[in-house]
């Protein structure tokens, strides 16, 4: 029982660390954080990774993957998030690509993978519908074959970054079966096809990442269907198991260090907030939880290194990871005090009178999503009860 990495791994860690330090510049960070400059800056970042050969480490080497070991993937993720650098956009590089690699035709691989890899084509995910959220099998968007084309009609919602995307991969209903999952197919759609309308959904943080996507007699070439009709559910399922892996430990660590700093500077009647025992208690509650979670994650990685698949500990990582993130967001809001209410807009921090109040609020509000997305924490507890505890 030990926590040491091999010397090769440590060498690799140093390489990643150096790359991150050089490539992820403060200027890039600033532009990625702003709605207006986000897409260009994110593409710039992804192209750096692409050139380094690190953009799709989990892909097979022949398609441009890095051939990393589990340990290397973990080290890469830790180093990346330790400096706060963003992950790649997952829709093409993680989600769709695993489906195409496993179930797509050779033509689809040739057509789509290179531009995903180079970040030249952005994807979004068309799964959820107004009547089909956690219960995805209830989806209604239909695709009817008409000659060589599918005609798609329906309404997707909560589509992240649809307004930045070139393509959308959709679950659509191609037939009505007894078992609801069986009539679902997996279809790739050029988002500029006539008949597609994108409506932005402003989130409670005041920002725009989500959209509704309406399909009105949208014609899609039938070669854009992945695999067989009616098997879309199976493909999507295979993908979902890839989704949960990291618990955001490095990010939360960085946030907590920042919070210690801010709390030492925020003064109330002569006493720094950090010296207020009530605040200190809340802060150390989270710090201790995170110290534990870090090792829950390491235990999971160590299992994976021995070839044991990601087990049910991913539900623990998801629940605790998001609980810690939300506690962090709450601490940050509480440090900001009155200034957490500010909607900064075009004002400078000097005009507002505070550095992080407005972004603390945005993160707090946006963070409410963490316990909902990727399988809500309620569903994660169902999973633990069923698959771990056998209830």
């Amino acid at each position, binding site marked *: 029982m030990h926590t040491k990495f091999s010397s090769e791994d440590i060498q690799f860690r140093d390489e990643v660390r150096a790359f991150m330090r050089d490539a992820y510049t403060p200027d890039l960070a600033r532009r990625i954080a702003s709605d207006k400059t986000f897409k260009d800056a994110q593409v710039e970042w992804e192209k750096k990774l692409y050139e380094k050969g690190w953009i799709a480490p989990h892909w097979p080497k022949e398609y441009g993957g890095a051939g990393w070991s589990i340990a290397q993937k973990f080290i890469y993720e830790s180093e990346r998030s330790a400096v706060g650098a963003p992950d790649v956009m997952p829709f093409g590089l993680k989600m769709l690509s695993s489906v195409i690699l496993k179930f797509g035709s050779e033509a689809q691989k040739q057509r789509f993978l290179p531009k995903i890899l180079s970040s030249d084509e952005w994807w979004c995910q068309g799964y959820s519908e107004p009547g089909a959220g956690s219960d995805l099998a209830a989806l209604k968007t239909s695709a009817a074959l008409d000659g060589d084309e599918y005609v798609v009609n329906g309404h997707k919602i909560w589509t992240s970054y649809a307004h930045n995307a070139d393509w959308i991969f959709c679950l659509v209903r191609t037939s009505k079966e007894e078992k609801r999952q069986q009539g679902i197919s997996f279809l790739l759609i050029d988002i500029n096809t006539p008949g597609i309308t994108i409506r932005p*959904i402003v989130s409670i943080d005041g920002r725009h990442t989500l959209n509704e996507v309406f399909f009105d007699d949208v014609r899609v070439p039938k070669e854009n269907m992945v695999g067989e009709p009616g098997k879309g559910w199976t493909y999507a399922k295979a993908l979902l198991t890839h989704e949960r892996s990291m618990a955001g430990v490095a990010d939360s660590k960085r946030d907590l260090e920042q919070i210690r700093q801010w709390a030492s500077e925020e003064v109330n009647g002569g006493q720094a907030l950090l010296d207020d025992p009530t605040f200190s208690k809340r802060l150390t509650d989270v710090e201790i939880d995170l110290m534990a979670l870090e090792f829950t994650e390491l235990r999971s990685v160590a299992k994976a290194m021995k070839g044991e698949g990601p087990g049910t500990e991913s539900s623990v990582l998801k629940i605790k990871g998001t609980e810690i993130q939300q506690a962090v967001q709450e601490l940050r809001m509480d440090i900001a*005090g009155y200034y957490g*209410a*500010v909607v900064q807009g075009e004002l400078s921090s000097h005009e507002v009178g505070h550095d992080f109040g407005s972004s603390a609020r945005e993160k707090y509000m946006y963070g409410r999503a963490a316990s909902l997305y990727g399988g809500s924490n309620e569903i994660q507890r169902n999973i633990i009860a069923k698959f771990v505890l056998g209830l």
Partner: protein
Amino acid sequence: MDFDLSPEQRMLQESVSRFVQDAYDFETRTKVIAADAGSDDKLWQQFARLGWLAVPFAEDLGGIGGSAVDLMVIMEEFGKGLVAEPYVVNTLLFGGLLGQSQNHSIFSSLIERIIAGELQGAFAFLERQSRFELFDVTTRAEKDDNRFILNGEKTLVMNGAAAEQIIVLARTGGKQCHELGTTLFVVDANAEGIEKTGVRLMDGQKVANIQFNNVVVSAQSIVGAVDHAAPLVREVVARASLALCAEAVGIMEKLYTTTVEYTKVRKQFGVAIGSFQTLQHRMADMFIEYEQAKSLLYRTVCSIDEQADDIEKNILALKVMVGRAGKLIGGDAIQLHGGMGLTDELDVGHYVKRLMMINTMFGDADYSQKKFAQIMAA
């Protein structure tokens, strides 16, 4: 012992509730706060006509001399309707300071105009560094013959963008955090040397950071006694806290009932999500927290109207509970509304933001609990 409203109070409740239903739906509210001022003068006139602006003022000042219960009734309904108009700041803070000061007679014309809905006022207490310490004041008022020269900055002044008159808490003596040596001045918002920066807050209200550069104020503009602002400020802030807590209880009622209704109609896996036992228990907890907050609100208003000796303790306890219950109810309301709860379109997030604002106002739950603990230990 009786916790029913009097017929008059039921009429008042009815009147505010009808206003919210008829003239203040969520769409209207969204438009009102989107406007630059963050409030609507026509609506304000309606408040005046309905007599609501007179409620907190004593009868000899032209007011109605309403009780704490009257105030609670109005504020709870405002909460349910998420009314963004600057009622608390105009009548309880600005108006309260004028009306409850020992020299209130010289401000009678200002008070008349407040009651008539003709005057927007503000109370500038916060500074960049002061956090929740009301008397952490660095803005200085230097005596110069029969007048004072104001220098400094007040931040996030509620209604500060729209106000014509601003009461400023300034230091005339003593050290930075001392209560003694603080004085209140009514200042014309257009006086020379005043510079305002409008700032939008998450609940839609428009506040202002206000700089005072050698602003000249006369000795007649002093509210209360020189150096002795503290007792008056504390009294007025306590009353405003109570009002905000009543508003919060109204918001919590709205949030828990809205959530219950949503989970009855929202279906997943073929059944209403409200049929899942864990969600039922969470809503039961929302209800319990609401009921407890409401009870503490009743305790507090009764103690005020009966002039009991535990008023300060009750208000602090209420502030703590409203802060904590607000976080719980707000968080669960969003979580149980799922994706919808995360959109700006739905009203839920806006109620939650207002609850968050109220938690912070005049000291958050942690801060209020520390003060509560001090009283208990005394």
